[in-house]
């Protein structure tokens, strides 16, 4: 029989209810503790367990030449990483990876078993390797895209561009100098995985996008750079120097248009080359400028008024300074200032230097920045040096006046010479022009200061005129080409080996610019320790000449012939007893070319493609008037044998520059008569003439205009 529940039962039920209530409160408190007090920590912890951070490299900025041609680009490549906790069978996985990627098994296994959430297996692998690894479908092995630096032009401008390392960090060249701008800042992808190592759908949390680097536009012109590289290759082939450099610069702005160094390296595989090849001779090493320094002594003296262009100098072959006899390379006799420069007379320069005095010599030496950094935007720049002023004796001053005992960097010298070329201003040589973002908008235009005017316009012009004579009839004759109006100075310096001046080891150099009236390009060629011939006029000047010819064509600088340069000498006009005219051999088979040159009374040397049969270029150019026995270098290649005859294009109605360019492109030379617009030409358009023929074009001012459009016509 049942009974009604008693009062005791009710009390015990109430007690139980109380117990449940109390325990519920405890549970609620526990929830609150977990969710409020430790909520943030636990959430973070849970998130970290579920996620792996994968770095996303910023896209490194592209390096372009001044015309937007790619010099350094970044391509996306896969990098392979492992999440060790998710690798199911480390030994098996390691074996497969080691096999496919070509790594050491032990090394891979060690990585896969590291107590880390993320390890790289192999970064920046090729497409084939990446595909092969993806096919294996290994748990715990993942891929991320990284960018790898590629230098599509190989060794071209290697010492300007430099290179970037595995983390896309700039290590040399502008890659290093402008690393911060090029690099951008990296981002992160935080990927959330389920416990079985699969990505949770739509769970891409915390994507921190990378900020891409800016694109860098250089002042370098790939076309000019190619010419520089070509000439350096030729110098290496002909002279096997220890090192060499060529710099091409705009003398007015300091923009470097081309800068090459030998020995060189391929930045794509920089690690495969000895680090010595990375060294940038042009900015990091000093050399003895020798005679290329002489114009600097000249401008100081002219500027200070210690000599003028009517001053007379006498060279007896040597000069005794203090108790030392210092020799000239010849006995020049009586010379005026132009003659001293033209003949590179050491005695003349010693006299000039001694007249100038120590104080003023050092003042100009410093003003022209020969003992200070140029500030070029390339790493590792060195400073030139010489005897300290207070220790400088009279004999030291005399020797320095013609460029001995001084040491300068190539970039310092070209900057000092640019002062002569640009009318007196000390520029800042530089290779970077501007930065642009990925949309092509200009972000920063780099500002390169043009320094103070250190010599007067007049002095600069006068020295240029003297330097033009050097190329025309002096030590730089090899580089002479009619119509080009080139100015320059050769340099041949003995090197000091172990503290002793060596008679066998030399630095040959040539620094020049053109056109002399209004220089647009300045070029320095330095060849350190050439084998065999070591004179600047032989080793460095031909490269200068060839470069200038190509640069004139490229920049459409018109050739301007003076009357005396007329390739077909008029009877009685000039007295040219000891000069011969270089025949045009371009397009001829090598044998015929050599015969033609021998007949003309000049020597010939062949360079260029092995197996080439046809002359594709010659230096000095056709029509040049040179001393008998001058060396003419023939470049041979696979030219078209039937191309000796070219068709004369019509230049009627064109400006001087335009007409010159068109004729150049056709392989013809121009002789300018008058100024303005072309109204007549001889030979006439359509005529078939030998390549290198000079076409006389008559210009007249256009109706309604009295200005001289060309501005560069000869006297």
């Amino acid at each position, binding site marked *: 029989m*049942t009974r009604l529940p008693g009062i005791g*039962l009710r009390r015990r*039920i109430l007690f*139980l209810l109380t117990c*449940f209530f109390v325990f*519920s409160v405890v549970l*609620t408190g526990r929830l609150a503790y*977990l969710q409020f007090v*430790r909520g943030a920590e636990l959430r973070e912890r849970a998130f970290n367990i579920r996620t792996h951070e994968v770095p996303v490299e910023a896209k490194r900025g592209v390096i372009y030449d001044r015309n937007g041609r790619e010099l350094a680009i970044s391509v996306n490549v896969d990098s392979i990483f492992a999440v060790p906790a998710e690798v199911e069978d480390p030994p098996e996985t390691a074996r497969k990876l080691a096999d496919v990627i070509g790594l050491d098994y032990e090394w891979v296994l060690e990585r896969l078993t590291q107590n880390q959430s993320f390890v790289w297996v192999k970064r920046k692998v090729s497409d084939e390797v990446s595909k092969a690894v993806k096919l294996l479908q290994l748990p715990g092995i993942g891929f991320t895209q990284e960018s790898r630096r590629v230098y599509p032009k190989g060794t071209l401008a290697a010492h300007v561009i430099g290179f970037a390392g595995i983390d896309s960090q700039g290590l040399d060249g502008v890659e290093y100098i402008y690393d911060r701008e090029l690099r951008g800042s990296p981002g992160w992808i935080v990927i959330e995985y389920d416990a079985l190592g699969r990505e*949770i759908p739509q769970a891409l949390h915390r994507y921190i996008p990378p900020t891409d680097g800016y694109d860098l536009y250089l002042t370098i012109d790939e076309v000019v750079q190619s010419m520089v590289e070509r000439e350096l290759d030729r110098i290496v082939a002909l002279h096997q120097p220890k090192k060499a450099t060529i710099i091409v610069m705009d003398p007015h702005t300091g923009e470097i248009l081309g800068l090459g160094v030998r020995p060189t390296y391929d930045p794509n595989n920089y690690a495969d080359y000895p680090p010595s090849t990375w060294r940038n001779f042009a900015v990091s090493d000093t050399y003895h400028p020798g005679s290329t320094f002489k114009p600097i002594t000249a401008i100081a003296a002219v500027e200070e008024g210690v000599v003028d262009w009517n001053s007379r100098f006498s060279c007896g072959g040597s000069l005794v300074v203090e108790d030392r006899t210092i020799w000239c390379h010849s006995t020049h006799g009586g010379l005026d200032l132009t003659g001293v420069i033209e003949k590179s007379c050491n005695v003349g320069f010693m006299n000039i230097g001694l007249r100038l005095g120590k104080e003023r010599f050092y003042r100009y030496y410093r003003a022209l920045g020969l003992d200070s950094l140029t500030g070029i935007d390339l790493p590792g720049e060195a400073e030139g040096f010489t005897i300290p002023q207070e220790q400088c004796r009279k004999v030291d001053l005399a020797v320095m006046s013609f460029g001995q005992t001084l040491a300068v960097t190539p970039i310092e010298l070209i900057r000092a010479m640019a002062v002569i070329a640009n009318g007196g201003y000390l520029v800042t040589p530089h290779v970077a022009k501007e930065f642009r973002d990925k949309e092509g908008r200009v972000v920063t235009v780099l500002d390169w200061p043009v320094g103070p005017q250190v010599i007067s316009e007049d002095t600069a012009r006068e020295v240029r005129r003297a330097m033009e004579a050097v190329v025309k009839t002096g030590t730089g004759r090899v580089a002479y080409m009619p119509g080009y109006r080139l100015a320059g100075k050769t340099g041949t310096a003995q090197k000091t080996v172990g503290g002793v001046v060596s008679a066998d080891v030399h630095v040959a150099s040539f620094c020049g610019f053109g056109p002399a009236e209004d220089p647009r390009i300045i070029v320095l060629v330095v060849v350190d320790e050439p084998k065999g011939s070591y004179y600047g006029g032989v080793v460095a000047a031909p490269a200068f000449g060839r470069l200038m010819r190509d640069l004139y064509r490229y920049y459409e600088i018109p050739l301007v012939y003076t009357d005396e340069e007329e390739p077909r000498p008029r009877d009685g006009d000039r007295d040219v007893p000891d000069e011969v005219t270089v025949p045009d051999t371009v397009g001829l088979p090598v044998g015929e070319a050599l015969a033609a040159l021998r007949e003309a009374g000049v020597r010939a040397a062949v360079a260029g493609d092995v197996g080439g049969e046809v002359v594709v270029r010659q230096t000095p150019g056709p029509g040049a008037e040179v001393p008998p026995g001058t060396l003419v270098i023939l470049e041979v290649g696979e030219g078209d044998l039937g191309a000796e005859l070219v068709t004369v294009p019509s230049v009627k109605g064109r400006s001087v520059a335009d007409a010159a360019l068109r004729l150049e492109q056709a392989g013809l030379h121009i002789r300018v008569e008058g100024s303005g617009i072309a109204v007549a030409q001889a030979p006439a358009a359509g005529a078939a003439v030998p390549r290198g023929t000079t076409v006389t074009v008559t210009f007249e001012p256009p109706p309604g205009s009295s200005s001289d459009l060309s501005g560069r016509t000869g006297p």
Partner: protein
Amino acid sequence: MSRRAPDYAIIVCVATLLAIGLVMVFSSSSVRAYVDFGDSYYFLKRQLAWTILGLGAMYVMMRVDYWEVRRHARLLLFISLLACLVVLIPGVGREAGGARRWIGFGSLQFQPSELIKLTIVVYMAWALSRNPERIRDFVRGVLPYVLLMGLVFFLIVQQPDLGTAVAIGMTVMVMIFLAGARLGHLLGLLAAGVPLVLLLIWSEEYRRRRLLAFLDPFADPHGSGFHIIQSILAIGSGGLFGLGLGRSRQKFFYLPAEHTDFIFAILGEELGFIGGLFVISLFLLLAWRGFRTAMAAPDMFSSLLAAGVTTLIVMQALLNIGVVSGILPITGIPLPFVSFGGSSLVFTMAGVGMLLNVSRYCSES
């Protein structure tokens, strides 16, 4: 005796919990269901079927004359004990996850331990109300039930299903307590039982490690502490309002048994403190209404039956939440109405049906 309407508060309470259960089973299991069965609704469909079956069982148990049930109390217990024995026979009991808990044919499987949860409550209510004075006598009134409990406990631990065994043991002890056993006897049992339980725990290395992991789960985060850490991380991630329904991250295979024993962790992660508090409140409300029914019940049997069923359900709920939140050792107890699981749901609903049945005979006071 006049019949009144059943306690609607209990119905609302249970219906709400069932609804939460369906939602949470779907939310927590859809990933695993899709990966394992190719059907996100795999578990939801089954839970829905069990819910309908449970509602049927509840309705039946609410309608039948529960004094009739009382008459068969011994038979029901005997059948249950038999089932609990049979399930242990290899080849008969179906094994899953290292435990032999199910018997039946094809897809119609049930857990004898869930059956005996309910039948032992009915049996105890019958036995304790038969001669209320005998409870004062330890040997004749208490010891037989303790021994019965020991037998059931032993059988279920063999499956093994420690959680259910603990829930049954505690419910039986609570009923003995409610029936009026002397406190001295109970304390004596406690003094004897605790060392016994400790010995049981200590005797098996795996059990000891697993049971004690909750004290310092981070000591062995990849081993014994793994479940508890993942559970705590899930709850902790929830905050005040949770990540939002269906937004759990831990259900992506980090949290084991996410749709069964640890469903409350997903609930805490998705619905936050508010959701957890709501569920606890519902069980507390159920406790209050259930115990109120027991106190107003027409007789001792009805009273003990109502109190026993209520205790069984609420005790399991509190133990489950205690385990999931890391303040009790892991024993493997489902959260009533919410966790996925057919037998548990159907028998719990049948129990609720009896509770409601009793509530229809309650006195006004």
